[in-house]
Each structure stands twice: as structure tokens, then as C-alpha cells.
């Protein structure tokens, strides 16, 4: 007799597909937030699977900070070509030029993405935005709903979230309100990697180790490139490194690693003892409260 037990990855996949189909069936105009990082790529891969053989029935939106690794843009374009999905680009640089947002002193465009994103979402009339957030990322996220409600300013209201019982999601909103949907809520970093390996998902090569010229700053390793040039008095070294997250190219650090294949990465992630954000995001080191604040502003 067959066991009729679904493996954990297939269970997670089935749940994510269920969520995406539910959103497409119930919301007017969904859109997938695509950063080019592994989580948003997994989301897009799941969207492709959820609606096959039809094309993904919603656009993806890239909030372009202008601080992109080229290989991330290349990977994005490969996905667009291959899946025929519609790509919407919201430009932060253009937002700066128009005076919608102002450059932050530390050069991070992480925070000023938010108004750009919200403006684009409003312009296109998106009422549901898929985000790649996972509950295991940090404590503030553990209580995040799969369907997360935003007021008409796009802001998260912690006191006004709906209970989620069984898999009966309620996406009803009033005119002007919207939801964020997190189909990967129940995935962990290891699940994501194991799935990427199992499905052989196309990622930017930043995620794999190779020899990079790097410089150490505040305990973090930054590649020496146009975004993070060498400063006076710094000595670069050549190390085998890879990226664990992909954010602004001027602020994302890499870690020492010899994981040159997806299998190596899975094994490394299974053994590693540091959270992703703790390891590589210069701008996220601030505090857990910072995360909560950004969520309230509508970033997530």
C-alpha cells in the first residue's frame, strides 16, 4: 500500500500554491514583489507551478534601488524571458529625482524603497502584494499572518490583524486597502535551500562560493567593487566567499564559504550557526525593533 504521506517540502509547496491560488481567485489585482533574492525567486517558481500550464496571472514588481548586483538583474531577466511574466519596475532613483524620497546619509536605500513601492502599488491598483517574508527570519515576524492587512496608507496595523483559522483565508478589503501575502510564511531558510536544490532553481551566482577580493569592515566582509570600493588604508584579501542575502549592493556583505554547488549550500546552511540577517546585512544590524518599525511603515 502507498503511504500517502507528503514530504515536508511537498507539504510546504502545496500550502504555498494553495495560498497563491486563493489570492488570485479572490483579489482584484495581485502582484509579486520581486527583489531578485532567493526567496522572491522561489515565490515566482511556485507561482509558475501553481498556474501551469497557464502563465503566471499577475505581474511581478521590482523596486529598483539602482544599487543592484548585475548578476541579479541578469537572473531577473532570464526569469522574465523564460516565464513570460509581466515585469513592472518601480525606480527609487526616479523617486529621488522627483523629490518623493530623499537619500539617507548612510547610503542605504532600503528604507526609502517603501514610499516608492507604495506609490507604484497605488498607481497600478494592486490590492494584494506577494512578499517573500518568512516567520523564521526573526522574532518580530513569528506572529505575522499569511494575509497581512494594510490601511489605505499601506501601513501595517498590529492591532487590526485577522485571525487565520484552518486554511480559510479572508482577503476581503475595502476600496483603497490592500494586503500583503506571505506564501513562504512556514518555510525556514533550510527549507528554501533544500527546495532550490530539489527543483534546481535558477539563482544569481552570488549565492555560490568563489574567490572574491574582499575587505573586512566591522566584522563583515565586503567585496571590492564599484559599489564598495576600497577605502584609504584598507588592505583587501582574496577569499572564497558567497552571499547569503541579496540587498543593496553597497551594503550587502558576503561570508566565507566553500559552497560552490547548491548541495554544498544546503549542507552549509544545515550546519551554520548564524541567522541570515545577523550575518550579512549591514543595515539590519540595528535592532529587532527596527524591523517592526519598517513593517509599520509598509515596507514588508
Amino acid at each position: 500500500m502507498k503511504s500517502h504521506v507528503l514530504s515536508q517540502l511537498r507539504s510546504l509547496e502545496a500550502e504555498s500554491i494553495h495560498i497563491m491560488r486563493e489570492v488570485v481567485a479572490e483579489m482584484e489585482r495581485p502582484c509579486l514583489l520581486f527583489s531578485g533574492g532567493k526567496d522572491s525567486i522561489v515565490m515566482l517558481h511556485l507561482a509558475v507551478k501553481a498556474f501551469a500550464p497557464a502563465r503566471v496571472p499577475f505581474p511581478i514588481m521590482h523596486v529598483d534601488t539602482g544599487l543592484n548586483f548585475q548578476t541579479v538583474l541578469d537572473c531577473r531577466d532570464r526569469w522574465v524571458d523564460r516565464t513570460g511574466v509581466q515585469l513592472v519596475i518601480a525606480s527609487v532613483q526616479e523617486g529621488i529625482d522627483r523629490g518623493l524620497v530623499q537619500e539617507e546619509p548612510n547610503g542605504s536605500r532600503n528604507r526609502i524603497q517603501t514610499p516608492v513601492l507604495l506609490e507604484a502599488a497605488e498607481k497600478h491598483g494592486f490590492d494584494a502584494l506577494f512578499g517573500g517574508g518568512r516567520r523564521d527570519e526573526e522574532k518580530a515576524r513569528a506572529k505575522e499572518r499569511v494575509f497581512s492587512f494594510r490601511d489605505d496608507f499601506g501601513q501595517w496595523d498590529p492591532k487590526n490583524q485577522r485571525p487565520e483559522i484552518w486554511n480559510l483565508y479572508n482577503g476581503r478589503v475595502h476600496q483603497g486597502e490592500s494586503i500583503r501575502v506571505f506564501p513562504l510564511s512556514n518555510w525556514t531558510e533550510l527549507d528554501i535551500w533544500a527546495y532550490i536544490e530539489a527543483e534546481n532553481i535558477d539563482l544569481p551566482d552570488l549565492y555560490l562560493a568563489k574567490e572574491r577580493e574582499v575587505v573586512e569592515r566591522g566584522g563583515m566582509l565586503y567585496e571590492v567593487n564599484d559599489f564598495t570600493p576600497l577605502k584609504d588604508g584598507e588592505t583587501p584579501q582574496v577569499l572564497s566567499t558567497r552571499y547569503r542575502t541579496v540587498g543593496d549592493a553597497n551594503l550587502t556583505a558576503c561570508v566565507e564559504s566553500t559552497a560552490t554547488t547548491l548541495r554544498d549550500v544546503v549542507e552549509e546552511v544545515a550546519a551554520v550557526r548564524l541567522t541570515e540577517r545577523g550575518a550579512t546585512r549591514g543595515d539590519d544590524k540595528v535592532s529587532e525593533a527596527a524591523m517592526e518599525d519598517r513593517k509599520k511603515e509598509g515596507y514588508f
Partner: protein
Amino acid sequence: MTTTLPETGSAPEAHEVVSGDLLRFATAGSVDDGKSTLIGRLLFDSKSIFADQLESVEQVSKDRGNDYADLSLLTDGLRAEREQGITIDVAYRYFATPKRKFIIADTPGHTQYTRNMVTGASTADVALILIDARKGVVEQSRRHTFLATLLGVPHVVVCVNKMDLVDYDEQVFERIRAEFTEFASRLRVPDLTFIPVSALAGDNVVTRSENMDWFDGSPLLSHLERLHVASDRNLVDVRFPVQYVIRPQQNDARDYRGYAGTVASGVMKPGDRVLALPAGLETTIESIDTADGPVDEAYPPMSVTVRLADEIDISRGDMICRPNNVPTVSQDIDAQICWMDEAASLVQGKKYAIKHTTRWARAMVKKINYRVDVNTLHRDEEATEIKLNEMARITLRVTKPLFVDPYQQNRQTGAFILVDEATNKTVAAGMIGGPTRSY
């Protein structure tokens, strides 16, 4: 069909490193019974805690003048909120062992308790109930167990915690076990297990306790790893709520018409005779598709796309089942509900939106039969309104037929939510033909 698909590996199951299945459990306990410590211990001992998280816990513990790292801080984003009086919610935690991945729905025990517990238990395979060995079975233990059984959680594990504070005394454990078993016998608990633990010291959490050699059961983690949950799923009654119709408007798949959905229960195979509701028409399953190709069977909780041999008019909210095994088709629903809205109460005569599987309709509260006191299980038949965290038995009249099964037979097709049409908030969880038994 491959044209829109990114290249995928062959037979994905073959090279998955993350093996094993998924187990969801909900934890329940009164404040200070040691729930956070126990979860922290499970995460820590299963090495699901990262160094930077541990560092921050150690730092906070030191700042507070503690001698040891307080593991409860690992999960306790909630304590601050508790003090500030912000709504307390279910928090989800994750850990994995080589055997299984675990999802914990951590439901804090407070005024919002019933709502949180119902939410956490709704998808749980196991309810983990904590009891302080010094206090024994208290009112809340009964309430937690009642809610777990009402929500159809098939396994209940009672952790008698803080055994270190009662000298690891077998008598204390046995007394609690006897008392608990006695009242649980009046509920529908299919599988009940007791484990004496010390969350703080680690006895019987991950490793077998040397302090309690009188206990011959498994430590908590091995018990959870070995628990057989596959047979809990309903594999008998085929229920496939249609979620979305896939009809590509593309040249490469012009004639494709598939019904996408998640198998709620039963096992479906190509060639099976099926009946579509509400149309009432019979046809045959031509193929069960996934993006990785057709499969020879589909079972819960798989998300698949079903193609049928005949063209029948089927849309979202319809249900596919077997001709000789159909759900009840009804507009009159008798259900146990838990009210979840703080702003307004449920009152007789009021109308709500109802969502059952993938089907939306409107429902009017025809009658509040009685309110159940979740602590005493006393029934108040005079009740005219149901407030936050209260449970009641009600009768609804729905604008169109729903395809339902009793909740205790089918947790998918026996469940619904009510939504306030003015605020759009989810205001109630409903279990159809819920149990009428009491203790």
C-alpha cells in the same frame, strides 16, 4: 506544458536532503507553567537556535542579573507586549530533526486565550498541554483539552512540568495522570500521552531523564518524532473543493481546462468516476496534473489540477466528490462556533459573510441554541448574544447550499469562518455538527 516552466530537476523527491514529513503542534498552558522555557529547550537542544540569537538571549539575561541564559527569552517576544497590553497572538516557531519538520503554534494563555487556541489548534496534529506539577490539573487544563478535542486535534500530549520542584516524585505524576485521564475520558481524545518533564533542567525533553528512571515512556521529542499522524487524515471521503479554473488564453495550451485545488480528503485517481456539486453531473477524472507532470493519485494536502472527461460547467466554490460518497448539501447549518471579535457580539438575526472551503455565501443567524462556558462546559440556553472568546451552538441559514461533512469526520469540509460584512473582519470559527458531549 513545459514552455512556461523554469527547468526543474527530474523526480524531485529523489534528491531531497530535507526528508521526513511535517508535524504541526499547538502548545497550551497557563501563564508561568513553563511553555516558553519548554519551547526554548526544544529549539535549543535540536540546534535550531542560531548563535546570534543565543548571544542576544545571554546578553538580556545578564542585563537582568540572571545567572543562566533564560531560554524562555528565545520565544518571548510576547512578554513586552503583554506588559503593554497589545493584542496577544499566536506565534509560529520552527524546528527540524532528521526525522521531521515541526511547526509550533505557540498560543499564549490570556484573555484572548480561546481565540488564540482555536486558531493554533485548527491545523494542529498534536496539542501539547503543560501542567505545573506543583499545581496539578487546573481549570485551564480542562479548557485547553476541551478546545483541542473540539478542534479535532487527534493527539494530546500532557507534559507534567517542573518535576524538579517536586523531587521528581512518581506519585505526583501518577496523581495528575489519574485525574487528567478521568476527565478526559468524557471528551473525545483519540490519543492521550503523559510525560513528566523539567523544561528548565531538560529532563525528558530531548534526552531521557536520569532523575526519573521510573518513567518508561519516551522523552517528548522522540515521542513527537515517532507519532503516527498519516492515519489521522481522512483518506476515505473524496472531497475536492474547486479553487480556481485554469484556462490558459495562450496558443500553446488553447484547449486546456483544469480545476485547480487542494485535496481536502480522500484519494483521487485518474479514471475515477466523480460527481460535481452543485451541478449534480457525473463524469470521469481524465488526468490529475501538476507542474511536474501528471500524477497517478492525489491525496491531502496536495495541490493539484484535475481535468475531467466531459465538459461540465464548474467554477470556484464547486465540489468534486464520488457519486456514491457525497457530502451533505444544505443551506441549514448547525454548528459550534467560537466568537473572535472584540468589537461586536454575535446576535440572532444578524447576517454575515460565510466562507466554507472555497465557497463564499451569506448566512443569517437563525438561532443561538446555547452558549457553552468553556471552563465549566455549562450550557446557557437563555443566551442572546455571544461575545469575544465565547463558544456557542448556533443554527445558520445560508443563501446557497454548502457541501458539508461533520467536523469530527472532516476538518476541511466541516469548517467555516464568518466575516463581518461591514468591517470585513473574520469574526468566528465554526465547526459543523460539532460534538454535543460534555464532561
